[in-house]
């Protein structure tokens, strides 16, 4: 059972990869297993999150389930 984290923009550089498969469970617990620098970057206020393609208005209480994809979206830089 695993979920996938997707990192966009500069977060990909911080993570060193564009996506990462993680264990399911509460997001807070998942973040605690990551490199602290990456976890801090992901928690920045300006970073938005989308769960399975749907933007979330807030990220409190996210619990990742099997097959979920959670994307971390830093501010866009314009087309």
């Amino acid at each position: 059972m695993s979920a996938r984290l997707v990192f966009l923009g500069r977060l990909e550089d911080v993570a060193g990869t564009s996506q990462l498969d993680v264990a399911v469970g509460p997001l807070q617990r998942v973040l605690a297993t990551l490199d602290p620098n990456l976890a801090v970057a992901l928690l920045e206020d300006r970073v938005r999150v989308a769960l399975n393609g749907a933007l979330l208005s807030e990220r409190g209480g996210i619990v990742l389930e099997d097959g979920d994809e959670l994307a971390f979206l830093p501010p866009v830089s314009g087309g």
Partner: protein
Amino acid sequence: MPRDVRLLTEPIEPAAEQFAFAMAHPAAGGIASFLGQVRCDEGVEALELRHYGPLTLPGMEALADQALERWDLDGLLVIHRSGRMFPGDAIVLVAAAARHRRDAFAAAEFVMDHLKSESWFWKRELAEGGWRWIEPRRQDFDDIARWN
């Protein structure tokens, strides 16, 4: 078809697209279009746009729908590139066909301003052998504020 919205990973062919769009809307009184290209900035060798599949194209389609609702248009074309580009390459092409020119100009500008500030693209440029992510520009937020 009034709405043609595409996200391309291969080059845009602006002349062919504009010709096809005009042919598709022979009854329109006018067509306003905007073509964005990779600027030739000193030292910049390449530009890369990244998108996120589940959000980027759906967001472009929703934006096009807003423009179609707000102005009286015969047709609207929105084509945006993703991937690696070089100076002079086309990044974005927007064209609006309308009975009257003001609707066409306004719709094309509205779509461009929103694409620049709100669409789900992340951009980085290659200069002096290294890639650097581009941060949002203040001007883009000012540009969008006037449509509220």
